[in-house]
């Protein structure tokens, strides 16, 4: 059975990816950092649907912890077929109000964390000459949204690393792609006022927010053998915002 690690899988898009991949037949490692209870619920849901997996607490911005996680997963299941780099944070602010602690945390999680997990997972994938890495990016990686300079910069970095890693790892049978969602119905969007939601919706040609399950569906297809000739791509799914 194939094994997938989804980072930041206790909530939102990561949670939807974990559940979808379990439905696809993967044994899923639900990585989380703080939300143990929510991660347990994801695992329960997966098991209720006949799937299998485990939860794993690890702050992906801590290289030593990432190394331990990958070692443990490899030891437990004997292989790692898919890594979904998803754990990340948003700390919006305008440049002059930028808090440097937020800047560091965003870089640590959204960029360094992706590198740490990709490096360690690729090390295990190398051995079997196969594997897929999918990086969760954002439409903000290409679009200039005021107040999102830090988040945009981290997602721009994710897009660039996706392309370069695809080139480095392609000859070893490892594909690397990214998914760049627009506004997705997650806790962050749900917390907005109705006025703000309407303001955002006006920018979306499809005039609705996306669903985490729709992002998970793209991840599922990108990971599948049917899409085995796609690598180094950033798949934008934003309801048309970027048009």
């Amino acid at each position, binding site marked *: 059975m194939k094994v997938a690690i989804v980072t930041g899988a206790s909530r939102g898009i990561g949670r939807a990816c974990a559940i979808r991949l379990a439905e696809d037949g993967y044994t899923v490692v639900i990585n989380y950092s703080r939300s143990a209870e929510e991660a347990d619920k994801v695992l329960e849901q997966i098991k209720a649907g006949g799937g299998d997996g485990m939860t794993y607490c690890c702050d992906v911005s801590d290289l030593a912890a990432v*190394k331990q996680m990958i*070692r443990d997963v490899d030891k437990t299941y004997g292989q790692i077929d898919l890594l979904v780099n998803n754990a990340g944070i948003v700390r919006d602010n305008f440049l002059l109000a930028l808090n440097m602690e937020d800047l560091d945390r965003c870089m640590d999680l959204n960029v360094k964390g992706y590198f740490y997990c990709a*490096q*360690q997972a690729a*090390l*295990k994938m*190398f*051995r079997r000459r196969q594997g897929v890495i999918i990086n969760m990016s954002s439409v903000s990686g290409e679009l200039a949204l005021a107040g999102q300079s830090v988040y945009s910069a981290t997602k721009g970095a994710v897009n660039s690393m996706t392309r370069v890693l695809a080139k*480095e790892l392609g*000859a*070893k049978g490892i594909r690397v792609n990214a998914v760049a969602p627009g506004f997705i119905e997650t806790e962050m969007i749900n917390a907005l006022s109705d006025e703000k939601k309407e303001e955002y919706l006006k920018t979306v040609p499809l005039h609705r927010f996306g669903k985490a399950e729709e992002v998970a569906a793209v991840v599922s297809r990108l990971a599948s053998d049917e899409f085995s000739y796609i690598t180094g791509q950033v798949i934008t799914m934003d309801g048309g915002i970027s048009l």
Partner: protein
Amino acid sequence: MTENEIKAKLKEFICSTLGVEPDVLDYDTELFGENAIGLDSVDSLEIIAFVDGEYGIDMTGVGKEHFFNIDSIAAYITENK
């Protein structure tokens, strides 16, 4: 496993997987760089993955001086076992 056995295994791997002729590869032969036997950065990843799989030693992010030759890789493995 002794350090000499590790060296022999590394040589066998480099020859069989990376296509280096055994007669040009001694334990002190430089592996990477201008005066070396022509291995490149992708080959270094192969060696890192081999060492990880075979000995459970993580060489990701390790300084390139440890990849100088078979002697130095074997010494790193022995020191970190």
